[in-house]
């Protein structure tokens, strides 16, 4: 018979082997994430998914649920869920169906949401996390496809306004098994999931904009007896930080209620995170499980993703951010911090690697310039690396000029800014503006002699063995040459002359 509940999952294997003595009850947390997919058109109709359009301007008979309209699934949305399944080590179903989830709420005009129930598109995967040095595997129960709902605006006058631009935007639901035992693990999961969804290009996964939403379910369980507190669902979380704080709060709230024997506070419920007060607040009791009267969507035929197509999607799954971060550490010998920042965006990581390929020098130097000066120019202009007027070839050339002592690092900063502004190459700018470093002993000699003559005090200090004073003299030479002298050469020549 249709409509059986999901099979009960076995208790997860505890992630940490440590013995809990004072706190026999361990948190058991599951996360449900909704992510809007990056398609041009909606899930079941051709309305645009563009954000910020005029109210009810991206709406048609299908997403409005008018009688006689028929949904047709967006192939790209199906592909994106399979791609996500591939990235999360899930299996893709050979055959699956859509289901109607029935409920009364005007955020969907049809009075039901097209979702998936007992036949998700992808299922049974996992993600490995590195949480403060500890390896944790979180099982993914399913990643399925559904449609987003419209938006309500509640008026003070006692009525509500509804608009359906968001209604029907493809939405992916990713459900984990309740394998998390700490708020830190939840935070790392969401951080990695967001990076993955962006890396594989299926969602911008921005929680602040509502493109990604997370709902944790938290309770405590005694692993030995199997005894557990009732499950609590938390809503209204608009950032990863909020999830972290709300889960931490909820674990403590339940622990205290258990420790102090306040059983009346422990019941199945939905709570809301109050960002300002930093607490979870009771929204409603859940006496019965929700009855959405799921049944197979009769307007949609089953999906049987062609095996070749699925294989192709799995085969083209790119290197994921966590893997890439580890590789950057070993292959390029980068500090973990650098590797983390560079792999936060696939474009930035690609740019880094492409530049390294073109530059015969240290990867750390590429990383420093990329994370420092290049990023600050991009941030100032409010653009991303793939929109940068400086190609990786251009950056590699600039770095070569520094490495070969043609220009100093200080001058290079100005050259970079000019490159950014004009799109001209480093060599061109250096030549036209005569910025080459003076490494010619003859040219430097006269300037150095001048500086020695003008600064008898510091010169005496250097002769007396006060090494600090040499820095001052080098600075003077740099000033006279507008920063174009090779500071190392100046240093050496000064020492030779004064000792």
């Amino acid at each position: 018979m249709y409509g059986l509940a999901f099979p009960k999952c076995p208790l997860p294997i505890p992630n940490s082997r440590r013995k809990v003595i004072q706190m026999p009850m361990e948190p058991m947390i599951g996360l449900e994430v909704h992510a809007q997919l990056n398609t041009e058109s909606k899930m079941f109709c051709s309305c645009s998914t563009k954000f910020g359009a005029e109210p009810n301007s991206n709406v048609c008979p299908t997403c409005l649920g008018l009688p006689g309209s028929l949904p047709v699934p967006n192939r790209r949305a199906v592909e994106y869920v399979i791609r996500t399944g591939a990235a999360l080590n899930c299996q893709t179903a050979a055959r699956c169906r859509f289901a109607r989830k029935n409920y009364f709420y005007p955020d969907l005009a049809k009075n039901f949401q097209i979702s998936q129930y007992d036949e998700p598109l992808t299922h049974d995967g996992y993600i490995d996390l590195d949480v403060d040095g500890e390896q944790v595997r979180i099982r993914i129960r399913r990643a399925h496809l559904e449609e987003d709902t419209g938006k309500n605006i509640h008026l003070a006058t006692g009525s509500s306004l509804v608009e359906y631009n968001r209604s029907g935007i493809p939405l992916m639901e990713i459900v984990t098994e309740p394998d998390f035992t700490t708020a830190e693990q939840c935070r790392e999961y969401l951080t990695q999931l967001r990076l993955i969804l962006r890396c594989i290009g299926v969602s911008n996964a921005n929680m602040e904009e509502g493109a990604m939403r997370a709902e944790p379910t938290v309770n405590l369980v005694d692993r030995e007896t199997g005894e557990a507190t009732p499950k609590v669902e938390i809503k209204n979380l608009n950032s990863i930080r909020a999830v972290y704080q709300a889960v931490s709060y909820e674990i403590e709230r339940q622990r205290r209620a258990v420790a102090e024997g306040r059983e009346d506070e422990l019941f199945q419920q939905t709570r809301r995170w109050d960002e300002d007060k930093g607490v979870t607040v009771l929204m409603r009791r859940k006496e019965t499980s929700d009855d959405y009267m799921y049944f197979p969507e009769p307007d949609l035929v089953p999906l049987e993703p062609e095996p070749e197509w699925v294989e192709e999607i799995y085969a083209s799954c790119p290197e994921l951010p966590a893997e890439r971060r580890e590789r950057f550490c070993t292959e390029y010998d980068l500090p973990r911090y650098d590797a983390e920042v560079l792999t936060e965006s696939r474009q930035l990581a690609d740019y880094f690697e492409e530049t390294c390929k073109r530059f015969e020098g240290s990867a750390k130097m590429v990383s420093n310039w990329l994370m420092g000066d290049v990023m600050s120019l991009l941030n100032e202009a409010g653009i991303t690396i793939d929109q940068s007027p400086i190609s990786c070839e251009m950056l590699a050339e600039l770095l070569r000029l520094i490495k070969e002592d043609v220009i100093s690092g200080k001058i290079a900063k100005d050259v970079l800014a000019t490159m950014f502004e004009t799109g001209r190459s480093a060599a061109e700018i250096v030549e036209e503006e005569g910025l080459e470093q003076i490494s010619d002993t003859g040219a430097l000699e006269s300037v150095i002699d001048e500086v020695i003559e003008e600064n008898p005090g510091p010169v005496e200090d250097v002769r007396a063995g006060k090494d600090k004073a040499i820095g001052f003299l080098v600075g003077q030479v740099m000033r006279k040459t507008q920063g174009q002298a090779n500071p190392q050469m100046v240093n050496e020549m000064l020492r030779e002359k004064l000792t």
Partner: protein
Amino acid sequence: MADVSREVVEHVAMLARLQLTEDESDRLQKELGRILEYADKLQAIDTDEVEGTSHVIPMTNVYREDQVGVSLDVEEVVANAPDAAEDFFRVPRIVEE
């Protein structure tokens, strides 16, 4: 006759957001019983070897490409709405779930 309890009638009515009088509940209790009796006859057939059917047409993989088409004008969108205000549908205040 298949037995349908009063609780089931009330639960189904609640799910459908129907407010039933005592008389209506009485009548529906009997009628639902007869409907389920018919379903019982179907349940008695051995269907172990039969794949569940959700769709009567033997068809799979009907897709559309991800292309934006024309949406309705907003006047048309709200044309059938019992109440509208400034391009929005207006509904009685919704209690936040």
